């Protein structure tokens, strides 16, 4: 069929409209860099984590799948956090993937600062769990070196205050996500045990 000039013009116009609103389709390298710099404002230099008013977690060296899942969870408000919802819902899938990969490649030293007195107890819990409370050993999913695997997050070098807060408030923030698997574990740990295991992982590199 012969396409008239007018029809071509119309088609072009429609296509132009279709793509005009979509800035995501053209995320450039500099856009990713700008977005990374933005993440670092809160998550710290090289995404090592930062103690703001709230403890802001380390993203450096994190599992790619885990970051993707979390950002999606925030955007869909399955993981409830107002600030991260606002961050997450403007990110395109391509941007999310780019960010996750960038974070995974970072490897700064842990922020540290946790009470060293808790390390022995923490290591015991991390490697052996708390059998009496049906708390499995963390190693079984998070790995011996706490570097995680796929959707199971890296814990090595994570902020002490952040891990403590997460384990304490697990179901308040994450009950609707895949990570609800952690709910009975978080509930099974006492406050003292939470602090101990949080301190332990915070020093792992």
């Amino acid at each position, binding site marked *: 069929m012969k396409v008239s000039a007018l029809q071509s013009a119309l088609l072009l116009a429609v296509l132009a409209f279709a793509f005009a609103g979509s800035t995501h389709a053209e995320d450039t390298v500099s856009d990713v860099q*700008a*977005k990374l*710099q*933005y993440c670092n*404002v*809160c998550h710290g230099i090289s995404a090592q984590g*930062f*103690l*703001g*008013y*709230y403890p*802001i977690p380390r993203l450096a060296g994190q599992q790619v799948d885990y970051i993707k899942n979390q950002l999606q969870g925030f955007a869909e408000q399955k993981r409830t956090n*107002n*600030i991260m919802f*606002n*961050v997450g*819902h*403007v990110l395109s899938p391509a941007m999310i993937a780019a960010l996750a990969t960038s974070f995974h490649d970072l490897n700064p030293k842990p922020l540290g600062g946790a009470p060293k007195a808790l390390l022995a107890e923490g290591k015991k819990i991390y490697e052996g769990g708390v059998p009496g409370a049906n708390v499995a050993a963390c190693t079984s999913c998070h790995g011996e070196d706490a570097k995680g695997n796929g959707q199971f997050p890296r814990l090595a070098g994570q902020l002490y205050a952040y891990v403590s807060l997460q384990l304490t408030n697990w179901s308040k923030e994450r009950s609707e996500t895949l990570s609800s698997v952690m709910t009975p574990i978080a509930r099974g740990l006492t406050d003292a045990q939470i602090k101990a295991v949080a301190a332990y992982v915070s020093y792992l590199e």
Partner: protein
Amino acid sequence: MSVIWSNSLRHLNGRRAGEGTTSLRGIRCRNMTMARQREPRTMPVGVRWVLRTAILALAFAGAAARAEDKFASRGSVQAKLSFCKDCHGTSAQGYAGFFPIPRLAGQQTEYLENQLRAFNEHRRANNIMSGIANTLSPAMISALAAKLRELNPPPVGGAPRRLMAEGKRIFDDGVPEANVAACAACHGPDAPGVREIPRLAGQLFPYVVKELTNWGKERGQNVAKPDTSFIMSPIAHSLTKPQIEAVAAYVSYLK
């Protein structure tokens, strides 16, 4: 002068009925003698002495206390705090002078100490504050910071209220499309700050505007000694002028 003398003489003459003198020296000696003879002894000399001394002592103590208030030893924390308040306001609530002078009341001690150190090391550029920080010992800095932290006057206010809603939105949610982080993440939901992160609640509107607008020109000025002020650089840089004014107005009313 002669009027006074003759009046006093008249007074004495009235008492003694009659005697007058001509020379000045004569008057004095005569009067003292007459005085001693005149006054009946009602109190022992010792008691009178003690009373007189006590009264004098009290008078001087009062004077010394007043002098102490006004000219409190230049090195004392009270004196230095009063000096801070000359510019920063009677309760350190801040003051809109020719330049906006920030609220220090209720500020995080770590932040205050860091700023004074930054002024001292010229990492934060401010001629006046550098001159002042120069005269403060580390102990004085800590003492001042502790005292200022305890003050809690109501905010000075005055910012345009119509900007509040937008300001709250930026503060709580950030501006993700512009890569502006949510202030609440670090400064806290009602901007109290924590540790080295400053309180923004009740901060002067024109001051916050000035800081956010001039961040890169004022803070982190010593390239050889980078400090935590770099964290705010991308944020200050990415905020537009209306956004700066909105968020500044919002925090200025927080208690």
